[in-house]
């Protein structure tokens, strides 16, 4: 459904529905050299850098359900928040080991996602939107009211992390946080890249394009949607856990509606249905936010709204879609 309005991608790239051989393209390798390069070239921006890496991971998780499986969610921050609070609470109550904390954060969010997925996948698009929105708000209110556990509006402070791998302490300059976030993002990206290029990933795209026809070729719709929703929730939980561990604080806004909405914006900006779209969208959004909202938060909100309207009306496939179209055209001319 995401590409119904414009030309479907298979016309731009005839090999779209063939299973990928999983080989890494030159551009991909260059792309993944950027985060380590930034670590050495821009040491003053490491805090922003790790924020970008974490949000990019979060955006990837939404891309799995929205871009690939075509399930619209307005409450994806719920799972980010579950992960953040799990990791944060573990550390507050005396278990500050980062890696196991992160795994537990992902596991808790995945359990949450599994339970919620049954409510989400059964409805039509409108009720999906409403149910995800409602669950997001429900969790926000729950965290707000349960201030004795979560700290409520003041946030959860006193998160103290142990040394990463027992060796590296989290420092104020954010070097370890950056490397840690980068490693987690890259590892999960490789898993997700493998996932979307697998037959399972292809069947998800099939569900997106024609959920009525997929049962006819023997693909179980509900169980696949439940599975991908659970995976996406788990990844979002890991992203939330990363944020809690690297900033050593959990604010109530990790669960807020604006976070879910901004995430959708990033994905659409970068181009949904492409893993790199989520990464690039998150990076562009975060950098723009850093500079523009520094000038004036109100103007920032106005421009992001305008950008969204323009992207929907004119550039439906986002930055990566536009780049891909340009690339195909250039190659066509070269022949």
């Amino acid at each position, binding site marked *: 459904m995401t590409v119904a309005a414009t030309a479907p991608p298979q016309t731009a790239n005839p090999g779209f529905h063939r299973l990928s051989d999983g080989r890494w393209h030159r551009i991909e390798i260059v792309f993944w050299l950027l985060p380590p390069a930034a670590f050495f070239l821009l040491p003053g921006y490491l805090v922003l850098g790790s924020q970008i890496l974490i949000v990019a991971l979060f955006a990837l998780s939404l891309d799995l359900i*929205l871009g690939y499986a075509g399930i619209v969610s307005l409450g994806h921050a719920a799972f980010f928040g579950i992960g953040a609070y799990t990791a944060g609470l573990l550390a507050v109550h005396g278990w500050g080991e980062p890696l196991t904390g992160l795994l537990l954060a992902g596991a808790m969010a995945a359990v949450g996602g599994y339970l919620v997925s049954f409510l989400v996948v*059964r*409805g039509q698009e409108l009720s999906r939107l409403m149910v995800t929105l409602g669950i997001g*708000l429900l969790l926000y209110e729950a965290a707000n*009211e349960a201030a004795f556990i979560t700290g409520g509006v003041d946030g959860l402070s006193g998160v103290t992390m142990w040394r990463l791998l027992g060796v590296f302490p989290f420092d104020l300059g954010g070097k370890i946080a950056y490397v840690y976030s980068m490693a987690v993002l890259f590892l999960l990206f490789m898993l997700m890249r493998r996932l979307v290029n697998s037959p399972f990933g292809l069947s998800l795209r099939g569900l997106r394009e024609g959920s009525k026809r997929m049962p006819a070729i023997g693909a179980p719709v509900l169980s696949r949607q439940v599975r991908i929703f659970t995976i996406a929730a788990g990844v979002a939980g890991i992203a939330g856990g990363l944020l809690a561990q690297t900033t050593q604080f959990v604010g109530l806004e990790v669960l807020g509606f604006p976070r879910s909405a901004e995430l*959708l914006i990033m994905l659409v900006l970068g181009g949904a249905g492409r893993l790199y779209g989520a990464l690039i969208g998150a990076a562009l959004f975060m950098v723009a936010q850093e500079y523009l909202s520094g000038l004036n938060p109100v103007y920032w909100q106005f421009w992001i709204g305008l950008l969204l309207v323009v992207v929907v009306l004119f550039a439906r496939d986002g930055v990566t879609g536009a780049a891909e179209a340009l690339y195909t055209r250039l190659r066509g001319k070269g022949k």
Partner: protein
Amino acid sequence: MLINFAGILFDGIAYGSLLFLIGVGLSVTMGLMNFINLAHGAFAMLGGYVCVAAMTRLGFPFLAALPVAFIVTAVAGVVLERTLYQRLYQASHLDQVLFSIGLTFMAMAAATYYWGPGQQPVQLPGFLHGQVRVLGLDLGAYRLFLIALVLVITLALVWLVAHTRFGAQVRAAVDNQQAAAGMGIHVNRIFALTFALGSGLAGLGGALGIDVLGLDPTFPVKYMVYFLLVVSVGGAGSIKGTLVAALILGVFDVAGKYYVPEVGAFVIYALMVLLLILFPAGLYGRRV
């Protein structure tokens, strides 16, 4: 205790009738054009600000500012519908959601720019102040006025839809757009007029609601859930469903905040998820 309960019921009905007034436009646009318009609350906010501006800057009395709010919002609605919304009728719901979130953000930023981030006050005329004693109950005069006005508007709407040529055309277009167009009904014109009416009513609701819901630039997001809830519980395109859902929601919200303030808005969100799971197509929605 019983008196107390009656008071809460009354306040809930007043609140619910306001939600109905704002939500009915959203319900009709969703039913008619199948468009998920998250920016509907922005029209209500515009109505509120127009009302305040007409009163403070042009010196209009409250009752004269209400029609101004209706007309300005309706005109804004029809302009946006013709220029932007109609391009997205065929688009996916995701596109519509993103587009209307974008519009909402712009409206909120613009409102902060022109009117500042604070709450806007409204000066109600003297006869709407205070309490009126009815059957041994002290009822707020303004809320009584609100209920009466919404009652009149609802009856007018029902008459419009059930007994006029325009209403018949709207019903035909909701039921089957293509067949309606084939019968010579100008579906696009019906869409534009309905959108104008819906946004105008939202604007009126926003103006009337300043005293009850408040008015500040976060209004569209703060109440978005309530409007969507009214529509999705009531069933898109059904005036009766919207009314019933709005009243249920209003009463439950007021009662929840009164009896169990510690759980806050939790009641309403839980109710929403529950109702959506039990009635995926809404209380009065047509089963697809």
